[in-house]
């Protein structure tokens, strides 16, 4: 259990959030009046069939997209209505992204990939960047892989580079979109264990979109989506079981 002091403001606070898309003459409502609060230190799985709106929710939480109506308060700041530049700023400062397909720059080394977010915020010198990137890679157990390019690493390793990249600016919130979708069972387990460790040891708030029930059960809270609405929101009571089922070795968090 996290020992961090819980902030008074929630990390995420969605109020009556809708998101509509115009497709031809149809208006598709991907999010339909979502009310959702996620406190600091939570570890949440968002599940649902494809088209249920979970990806749209993820894009909204990730400040890549904006609600059509309703308000989204991130760490006490109302994000709806921010300009494109301010959104980029918010992404840079407050969020870490983990993607299903890792989304690493193929030509760059692991170290350089992890440095990338720091390059877009002026306050780091080259030396600071490399030091921070090394720390992040060390944290995900890739101390031996600084100079490897994505093609030279396994899927699990690549995803851990992705997690290191999400971590490097030390954000409050880490968003993971199907982080285990491209991984085998063993690597999946490593990645889930990594995320859990970030939540429990580092106190990060973690939101994972998945359609893998086992991954969902490894989280502390599960929110189910259907047709743009939340249809279920429950706490996971017995987390130990699914994780053992995933056959996780502790080496991942070593």
């Amino acid at each position, binding site marked *: 259990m996290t020992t961090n002091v819980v902030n008074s403001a929630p990390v995420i606070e969605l109020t009556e959030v809708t998101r509509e898309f115009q497709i031809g003459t149809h208006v598709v409502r991907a999010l339909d009046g979502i009310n959702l609060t996620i406190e600091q230190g939570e570890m949440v799985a968002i599940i649902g069939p494809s088209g249920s709106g979970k990806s749209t929710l993820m894009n909204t939480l990730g400040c*890549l997209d904006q609600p059509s109506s309703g308000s989204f308060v991130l760490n006490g700041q109302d994000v709806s209505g921010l300009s494109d530049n301010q959104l*980029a*700023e918010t*992404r*840079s*400062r407050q969020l870490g992204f983990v993607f299903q397909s890792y*989304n690493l720059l193929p*030509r760059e080394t692991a170290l350089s990939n992890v440095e*990338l977010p720091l390059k*877009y915020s002026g306050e780091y010198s080259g030396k600071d960047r490399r030091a921070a990137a090394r720390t992040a890679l060390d944290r995900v157990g890739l101390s031996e892989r600084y100079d490897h390019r994505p093609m030279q690493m396994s899927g699990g390793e690549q995803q851990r580079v992705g997690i290191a990249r999400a971590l490097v600016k030390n954000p409050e919130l880490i968003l993971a979109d199907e982080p285990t979708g491209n991984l085998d069972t063993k690597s999946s387990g490593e990645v889930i264990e990594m995320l859990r460790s970030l939540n429990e040891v580092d106190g990060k708030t973690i939101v994972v979109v998945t359609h893998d029930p086992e991954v969902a059960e490894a989280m502390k809270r599960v929110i189910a989506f259907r047709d743009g609405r939340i249809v279920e929101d429950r706490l996971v009571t017995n987390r130990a079981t699914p994780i053992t089922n995933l056959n996780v070795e502790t080496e991942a968090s070593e």
Partner: protein
Amino acid sequence: MNAALLLSTALSSIGANKLRAGLTLLGIVIGVSSVIAMMAVGRGAQVSVTSRISDLGTDLITVRPGAQALRFAFFGGGGNSDVLSLADALALQDDIFAPGVRLVAPENSFSGAAAFGSQNTFVSGVGVTAEYLEARNLKIASGRNISNADVQNTSNVVVLGSETSETLFAQRNPIGATIKISVREFTVVGVMESQEGTIFNPDGSVLIPITTAHYRMNNGKGLVDSISVSSISVLATSESTVDDARTDISTVLRLRHELGVDEDDDFLITTQQDTIETLEGTQGTFVILLGSIAGISLLVGGIGVMNIMLVSVTERTREIGIRRAVGAKRRDILLQFVAEAVLMTFGGGILGVLIGWTVAYFGDGASVDGDIIETVIETHIAFIALAVSVAVGLFFGIYPAVRAASLNPIEALRHE
């Protein structure tokens, strides 16, 4: 993203596809190097023409019959017009009416075949006075000049151009020999130094007294004063009095020709400066033409850059999405792509300048069909070419960069 990071990011992107970058660059390299080389050749021609004219002395003023008179002469069928006479030339020597004039050298012309023994050659003949050599900056290599006594006596004496002398006499000494020009016999009294490479090359000509040319060669009539001249070379007292001398000449000739205030000059006064300006103007047009042709290849190179940048934006859509997701602003993406385009064209520009310079440097003095090519390398042209290549990069890079920056990050991330 700061400037240094931007540059290193752009460089590594360019480095990722070296062959493509190299080919794109090639267009700019060719454009810039041809601009540099063309301009060097053009300017070289300009400078060499100017210096050849200046060799004649910038205090030289030439007076010729005006356009009106020439046209009349053309229809009349005569070679010379009767507008300018020997008396006009004498009047220009007047210290009171024409104080700015130091030396006056009237001339007329004739042509014919010169023959010595079995050797003969076609010559352009000039009827001159003793002043001609000085006015035209020519020198006697051996023998003597046409003297004023020769002019007064209508003597049959001739001074040969070096080429004419060579043709008729080869290595023999021509002084004192008798040659035939048309049907008349002349005694060779002197040979001029070769003036090869100057703009009015007299090597193939012969000089005889102006009176002899008029009465004997052109079958002219009348008194000495009325001998018509085709051109009068005038030297001003100094380079700074050229304009004064010009005014003096105009005043004297207008008075002598009894021109009313509303009548145009029937003569034409040309200073060396006029000639230089006219030629430089013509050459300037030539240089601009060369430059424009080279500039077009630069433009084509720019279009190549734009083409490749557009392809690159499409190929790297996902990369753009990743960068945006981790905090890059639109401006960061825009600048990255603009920087790539500008770096490519700037690099191409530098290579182009180096190649253009090398070509111009080694091309200097090269001969093409017997013509010596002179090149003048000008630093400011290099800077302009570099600036233009950067501008080309900016101009053609901006549109692809805007396309990249305006991509929706969500869609960009989904792009395969």
